[in-house]
Structure formats: structure tokens, C-alpha cells
């Protein structure tokens, strides 16, 4: 269960880095068609009840869903009630917590840095990696830590997409829920303390990161 939780957290975080940067960058650029729709879609999990978001995703990625069916038939990918479903739940739950600070950081980096880099002969890709990215390090790491904390504590979507199958899709948070339902309060307390230590450690990382100089 702990190993499964760690794998889900790791996979979710990797997806958060990639999609957090890409979506944050895209949303920071004004004036393109579909920006508002994407912004709403990304922010929705933050305001929508997790159970309802989970149900929506179940309808979309379920075996007969508009995306679930083609994914299963053409690529053999079955997202629901599997490890992939858990990762999807962690990813969706934490995504706005990464995208929003990254978007804000992109918007706040003075345009003149990119202009200066262009005059120094740098490509847009080099500017992204060597000029923009180091300047949003705090926002990215902060967002990742918050998203990780959110995905570790996620129950509603995980229940919907993972199915709470013993030995296959029970994460730490779901195990606390199961333990309480079964009256195993000591077990629930032990896992709660463990999760509390992990999230507390993440908070310390976040605080230290905010004080460190910019760059990697």
C-alpha cells in the first residue's frame, strides 16, 4: 500500500512537472482561442467536489466512455480501476495547484529577460530552459509540493477511478478510510501519522526552497 502510494505520487509528480510547465506557459500567453476554456478545465478540480470530478472522469474514461473506449480498443489502455486510474486521480487533483503558480510566475517574469537573451543569440528553447525556468523555480517547486500533498490526501477521485480494490488500488488515504470503516483505529492512526510526517517534511522543503537563491 505504501509502495503503491509512493509510485502513484512519483508518477503524478512527473506528470505535474510536464503538464504544469506546458499549461502554465500556455495560459500565461494572452489572446489565443480556447484559453478561457482551458483555464476553466484546469481550475475546475480545485472548486468542484472531488467525488463529482471523479464521477465525471469515470464517465469520460470508463470502459464505455468517449475516451475510455477508444483508449482500451486501440491502445489497450484501461484507466479505470487500475494503477493508471490512481495516477489520473492524483494528476487531476493536483494539477491546478501546479499550473496556477507557474502561470502566475510566467506572467510576472519581466519580458525584458527574454528580449535580452534574444539579443545574445539564444533560441526560444534556450530562453525557456536557461532564463525563464530558473526564475520560476520557487513557483514550480511550491506548486509540486502542494500538489503532492493534495494527491497524497486524495480520496474522492481515487475511490471513483481506482475502485478501492484491496491489494491493487488502495492508497494510503483510502487505507485510512477503510481502517476507520472496519474499526481499526490504531492502523488508521499509524498511517495518518506517517502521512502527516511526509506532508510536514514537504512543508519544510517548501519553506527552505523559498529562501534559497534562484536557479537550480
Amino acid at each position, binding site marked *: 500500500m505504501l509502495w503503491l502510494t509512493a509510485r502513484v505520487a512519483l508518477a503524478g509528480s512527473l506528470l505535474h512537472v510536464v503538464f504544469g510547465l506546458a499549461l502554465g506557459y500556455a495560459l500565461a500567453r494572452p489572446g489565443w482561442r480556447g484559453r478561457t476554456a482551458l483555464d476553466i478545465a484546469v481550475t475546475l478540480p480545485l472548486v468542484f467536489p472531488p467525488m463529482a470530478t471523479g464521477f465525471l472522469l469515470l464517465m469520460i474514461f470508463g470502459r464505455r466512455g468517449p475516451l475510455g473506449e477508444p483508449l482500451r480498443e486501440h491502445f489497450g489502455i484501461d484507466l479505470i480501476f487500475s494503477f493508471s486510474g490512481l495516477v489520473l486521480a492524483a494528476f487531476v487533483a493536483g494539477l491546478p495547484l501546479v499550473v496556477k503558480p507557474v502561470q502566475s510566475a510566467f506572467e510576472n517574469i519581466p519580458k*525584458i529577460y527574454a528580449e*535580452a537573451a*534574444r539579443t545574445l*543569440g*539564444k*533560441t526560444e528553447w534556450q530562453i525557456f530552459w536557461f532564463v525563464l525556468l530558473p526564475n520560476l523555480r520557487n513557483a514550480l517547486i511550491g506548486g509540486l509540493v502542494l500538489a503532492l500533498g493534495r494527491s497524497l490526501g486524495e480520496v474522492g477521485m481515487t475511490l471513483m477511478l481506482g475502485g478501492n480494490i484491496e491489494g491493487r488500488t488502495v492508497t494510503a488515504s483510502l487505507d485510512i478510510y477503510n481502517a476507520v470503516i472496519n474499526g481499526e483505529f490504531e492502523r488508521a492512526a499509524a498511517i495518518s501519522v506517517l502521512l502527516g510526517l511526509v506532508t510536514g517534511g514537504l512543508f519544510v522543503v517548501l519553506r527552505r526552497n523559498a529562501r534559497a537563491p534562484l536557479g537550480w
Partner: protein
Amino acid sequence: MSALHFRLQRTLAFASGSSRLDVELTLGPGEWLALQGPSGAGKTSLLRLLAGLESPESGFIRVGDDCWLDSERGIVLPTRLRRIGYVFQEHALFPHMTARQQLAFARRPETPSARLDELLELVGLAQLADRYPSALSGGQKQRLALARALAAEPRILLLDEPLSALDPELRQAMQTLLQTVREAGLADHAIVVTHDLPEARRLAERIVRLHRGRIFSDGPAHDLQSIHPPLFVPKEPPCASVAAYS
């Protein structure tokens, strides 16, 4: 070294209205030009158009046989290929890089890294090479911005009011440094925006004054009496060949 010849046209929009920038100039090999004029005259816009940071409505830029811009033929060389050294008024130093890292970032691949030490020495920052911009004074930041621009081995140096924020003492020192850069021939051409006439005369061989986007006067810096409006009309097509850069 080769001549720089350009004509750039663009509408300048201000809160109080708009005016049309239309400037044509030719700079001889190694020539340093001071650009003066009131706010809104188009000085910074001209530098940004030359650097490719903004697009003109029409115009051309020719550096020797290389064409950087020809709006009629649809040629627009991107900023990164123009070999421009731009010293911004706000320095635009990267906050996450030390002084040395800024120069290393700007360095062209074929330039030996020892050149960075020479440049840091030139601008008097050799002892502060490991400092971040936040730990540098205004004058040190300005010198670092100049060194960074030079590290890219520019053909054209564009200096947008590089000394405006400095106190008189630092200003004097920076003027001396720019004179050293000019005498060392570290750029084929330079255009310096400055409001200060003595400074313009010290830094450049020629002074051009802009007013509402047009050249108001143009003449040698050593003889202000002989400054007159230019009457140059190009007789040849703007760009003979497309620049080929690797």
C-alpha cells in the same frame, strides 16, 4: 568592418496621440553615433527595431553585404541572428546568474572562455565575478550589462541611456569605459541614446537628433555648428543579398 545602412518606418503610439517614425541613416565602418531627442521622439523604438525586438511597418537594414531586414522582399532576420549587443536602460541582468555566468551565457561557442576574464577585467568586475546582480551596485550592474553585451561579440552595439541612472562620478567612469570599448573596436558600430550633450560628444563621432520620429539634425559631434538635416536618398536597392548565418 562594414557600413550600416537602414531605413525604418513605424507608427509610434502614445497616450497623447501618435506620430510616425521614419528614420534613414548610414553609419560608416567603426562609427559611433549618439542619438538624442525628447521623450517620445522614437529613440528607444529605433534601437528596438534595429535589434528586431519590434517589427517595422516597412524598411530595410543592411550591414555590409548582409541583409537583416527588407520588408519589400519579406526578409526579417530574427533578433538572435542579428549579432546585436543591447544594453538596456534597466540592465536586464538575469537574477539567477552570477556576473561570470551572465557572460558565459552570452559567449558565442567559438569564443574562448578566457575572453570572459578579459571582459570582466575590462569592466572592473573581475573581483566580483561570483556575485549575483542583487549584490551589485547600479554602476556595477551597468558595467556588467555592457560586458555581457560585448561577450556576444556584436557587430552593432545598442546602448539605451546606459548612464542615465548613475551618479556623476560613476557616469564619468562609465564614459571612460565606453571610450575604451570604442577605441578597442569591440563592435563595428554603436548607437548610444543619451540626453546629455557633453556625454554624446565624448562617446560618439556623430550626433543625430530625433523629433517626433524624424531626424531633426545630423552632424559631427566635434562641430555642433555644422549639424544639418540629412538629404540622403538611396539610389540602390536596399538589400543586394540575403544574409547567410550559421
